[in-house]
């Protein structure tokens, strides 16, 4: 995953909400830096310079009231404009908004989300993410995956954020600010990236034992590539022909795997764990904890509780070495 961008608000993706926010941040840092230096300088001066009657109420009125009032008034208007822009992902930079936010109604310039905007459901769970693409090209079939989200480059995608257990928070710092996932509610977040890339996100609201190991990847890719990918994700799986893979397939049903996992096209329809239909195509296992290859797959199946203690996946305790390898190989083949 060398192509992964650092999951950082300081490395915002071009065209994303995070980019607007990082420009906003820049304004804030500069302003705060100047104010900080001035106040500290004043404090040192006041302490060490000769006493002077210059220290009067004028300081209080000027420094304590007029200056903050003015600054905060400007800041508030500016940030409200940025906030609206980020919420709707309007194009244009935050600095432009800063220059012309007074006198222009920022709300007016924001186009409503176009009717064709793609919607993706992201459901937070202890401690992983379920991602559902509801509609694929008018077809009603569903693409369900875990811990991974793909976006077409340059198009806003609307995420509907929910949870089935505790509060989580969806945060991909280089794409957008965070939005909580709260039981009983559905929150919305619009994501967009203007360049292809792989981004990392992590749960930002403490959600219990393994909160630290709840990450996900977001991949932005050209529209055509995205379409191909999505179509493949919507496909079902067939029984493998290869003898070794078949052994893996059978091992899957020998164990308790199907109780929790779905593999579309097979009798496995468990709901509580991640959908594994295309698990082999994913970047990570265990919600961004492990890279995905046959070795980590085998290790995760056999030792999930050592890797992520307390998570819902038990250590498998029934497979022979050969079965484990075959199972890992079969799952890895589900691309």
């Amino acid at each position, binding site marked *: 995953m060398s192509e*992964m961008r*650092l*999951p*950082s608000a300081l490395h915002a993706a071009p065209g994303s909400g*995070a980019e607007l*926010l990082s420009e906003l941040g820049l304004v*804030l840092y500069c302003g*705060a830096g100047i*104010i*900080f230096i001035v*106040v*500290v300088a004043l*404090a*040192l001066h*006041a*302490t060490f*310079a000769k*006493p*002077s009657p*210059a*220290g*009067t*109420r004028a*300081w*209080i009125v000027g*420094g*304590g*009231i007029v200056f*903050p*009032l003015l600054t*905060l008034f400007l800041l*508030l208007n500016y*940030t409200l404009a940025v*906030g609206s822009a*980020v*919420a709707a992902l309007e194009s244009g930079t935050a600095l432009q908004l800063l220059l012309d936010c007074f006198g222009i109604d920022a709300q007016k310039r924001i186009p409503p989300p176009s009717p064709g905007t793609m919607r993706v459901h992201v459901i937070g769970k202890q401690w992983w993410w379920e991602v559902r693409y509801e509609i694929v090209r008018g077809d009603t079939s569903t693409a369900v995956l875990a811990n991974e989200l793909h976006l077409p480059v340059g198009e806003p995608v609307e995420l509907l*954020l929910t949870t089935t*257990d*505790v*509060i989580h928070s969806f*945060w991909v*710092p280089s794409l957008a*600010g*965070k*939005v*909580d996932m*709260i*039981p*009983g*509610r559905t929150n*919305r977040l619009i994501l967009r990236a203007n360049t292809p890339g792989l981004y*990392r996100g992590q749960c*930002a*609201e*403490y959600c*219990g*034992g393994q909160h*630290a*190991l709840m990450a996900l990847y977001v991949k932005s890719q050209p529209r055509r590539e995205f379409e191909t990918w999505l179509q493949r994700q919507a496909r079902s799986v067939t029984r493998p022909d290869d003898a070794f893979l078949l052994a893996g397939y059978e091992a899957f049903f020998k164990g308790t795997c199907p109780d929790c996992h779905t593999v579309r096209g097979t009798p496995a329809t468990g709901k509580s764990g991640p959908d594994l239909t295309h698990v082999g195509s994913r970047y990570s296992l265990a919600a961004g904890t492990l890279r995905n290859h046959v070795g980590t797959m085998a290790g995760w199946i056999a030792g999930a509780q050592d890797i992520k203690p*307390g998570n819902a996946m038990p250590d498998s305790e029934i497979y022979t070495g050969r079965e484990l390898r075959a199972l890992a190989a079969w799952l890895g083949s589900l691309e």
Partner: protein
Amino acid sequence: MSAPPNALPRPAQELARLEQAWEPPQGWRLLSAVNNTYIGLFYIGAALLFLVLGGILALLMRTQLAVPENDLVDYDLYNQLFTMHGSVMMFLFAVPVIEAIAILLLPAMLGARDLPFPRLSAYAFWAYFVGGIVFFGTIFFDVAPDGGWFMYPPLTSYEHSPGLRADFWLLGIGFIEISAIAGAIEIVVGILRTRAPGMTLDKMPVYVWAMLVVGGMIIFAFPPVILATALLELERAFHWPFFLAERGGDPLLWQHLFWLFGHPDVYIIFLPGAGLVSMIVATMARTPLVGYEWVVLALVATGFISFALWVHHMFATGMPHLTTSFFSAASMAVAIPTGIQVFAWLATLRRGQVQKATPTWFVLGFFGTFVLGGLTGVMLAVAPYDWQVHDSYFVVAHLHYVLIGGMVFPVFAAIYYWAPFVSGKPLSERMGKWACALMFIGLNLAFFPMHIVGLSGMPRRVWTYSDTLGWEQWNMLSSVGAFVLAAGFGVAFLDLLLHLRPKGKVDSNPWDAGTLEWLPLDNYGVRSIPHVTSRDPLWDRPQLREEVERGEHFLPGTLTGDRETLVTSAIDARPQYVLRLPGPSWLPLLAGLGTAAFFLFLTVKSLVASALGGVIALVSIFMWLWQSEPAPSARLYDVGGGIKLPDHMTGSRSHSWWAMVVLLLVDATIFSCLVFAYCYFWTVSAAWPPPPFGFPDVTATVACIASWTVSATVLFLAHRAFGRSAPRVPLIVPIALGTAFAWIAFVLAFRALAQTDVRPDQHAYGAVLYTLLSWQGLHVVLLTLMGGYTIARAIAGRASAMRRNAFDNTRLMWYYAAVQSALGCLVVHAPRMM
């Protein structure tokens, strides 16, 4: 300037009698002391102990995070560590230490001999100390809470946090709620009613103003968290679904209630720090604080605005844009009063010749860190920016800058500044400077990198992180900084151990300060209570020290033979009566232990032991109350200046009446929060009451309200009759009657609920209805106890037309309970109007 109120020479034996009355208990009996100087020191010592303990937890965490993928502690222990660190620092260090400092300093600053309710302070301290130790001890038994210090449900509810861990958190908070409310009563009544004659509101030291505001804030800020913790415990213990979405609850209700407390709490912690800085700055610059009125106004304004900020902790919960905008604006607005104070301090420093001693260095350290924390605070108030940094290490950096910079630095400035007040001589300048420098460097080294690592995507509360994310160098720096900071604390504590020797008799004013606490002091406080005519009496009347020490001012000895102080009017501080104060007693300690045992054993579900603790606590409290309100003397006492005062007062002039009113304000705020919870469920749900349930029975509701009216009326009639006849008959009969009607009302309220068919564990609707009912029931029980106590006093001859504070307080509670219960019954039906 006028002559002092009392003439010289003073009678022989006057001083000896004063000393005898205030004689502190010796040896191990010291634990029975209730005097504010002792309790204040115990309290500060305990709070600093928890600072050390919480700090050790922090060092463990920083060691774990120093390198990526570290195995020093596992996830389970780490989650306990950060939960305990936050809870210990906020609830067992920050809030208690500000109350502790107030208990120690306030009487001396006000020219009083003690606070009005010494035993209440002692009780608050013991409940806090024992409870705190038990709470902290859970970490050694692997039952420490692990839900984070703000304990968001549903993670902390019974399903996702089975076991005792979360219950121990609720227990720990329970203690701090008790001691904070007790402290607030003490502080507010103390400030308003025991100031030295002449110390009108506009002559109060800024710190006293800060504490008055903070006392007021505690009264309104703690009730939401009291209610929230009660609801969560009800949910955990009985599965009443307040926060469970699938049964009509809402996890956000917890967040609203918690932050409705949590944000003012930040200012409850910071304002006393600001007040301390105002005092120190003025003294160190040897000039009166520039813009006193502005600063006071700023304190009051901060107190108000702080209640309008809580939602900025919830910007990421997906609330409407308009809401975030409002709270964004309010959050920014709080920068203005803070700015006023900062510039007032700067102007003061500029005007005077600054003494460069350790307190000054700490104040400068405070400027250098708090201002930065304040600025990042403004950033967090910017809603869109908050979406990025919320719940990241940026917030961790911000809050530590604000709390350590804005509160710990002033507290250590205060420790160095007021050490001579306790021990007669300053601490080591050399060690003080080292401590200050190490703390300043450590703080910046530990927390500045956290801004960057937070922006780089590191969320809070993670026990480990990967080495591929670019976070490791910053974390290493932070960890090193944490140890430097700890070394700074270490030097300061060593200095305290080596050089602080509290003594009874202190006559010291090393910084040449202008306020009353620098008068010569002994166990009895000041020799005579000064007549105050300006804001900085020691500067404006240099001879005041000698006059006070010679006994030329008010109340130079003991008039009743008991411990005494002067009660003055709230606004203009005119002497009103001589308050006889209780002496040392084991009862507060016993009551504190009993309370601790009650909650502790309740938490571990050991009901018999719990009940035993409860009985011990109740009996101790009743015994101590029994001793209160000694028989009033018919004569008037000459306190000096030709002023003759009684030793007792009833009705709204009595200090106990004020305490009762404060308590009722707390009570009413809890009730308002409960009503808020009801309305909240109503607004967030599609239909109300949620089908298939109905509203409570109207007839029973009306009957309940009628019954309460009768009950309160009976008490009112008794009150009218009390002044005229012998007390026995008009007290026993009406109170018994009133109690009976209160119980009838409660039963009727229950019957009204039964009509709705909803059980409390079925739906949030049922849960909130039954909580309203339980709250009413709790008051009925309380009235029964208070009524019984009042009757007992009447029978024992401890009540009369003059000696009626117990009755008056019971009566106040009665009216309040009746109104509250009636309102509670009505509010339930409010949705019918819509």
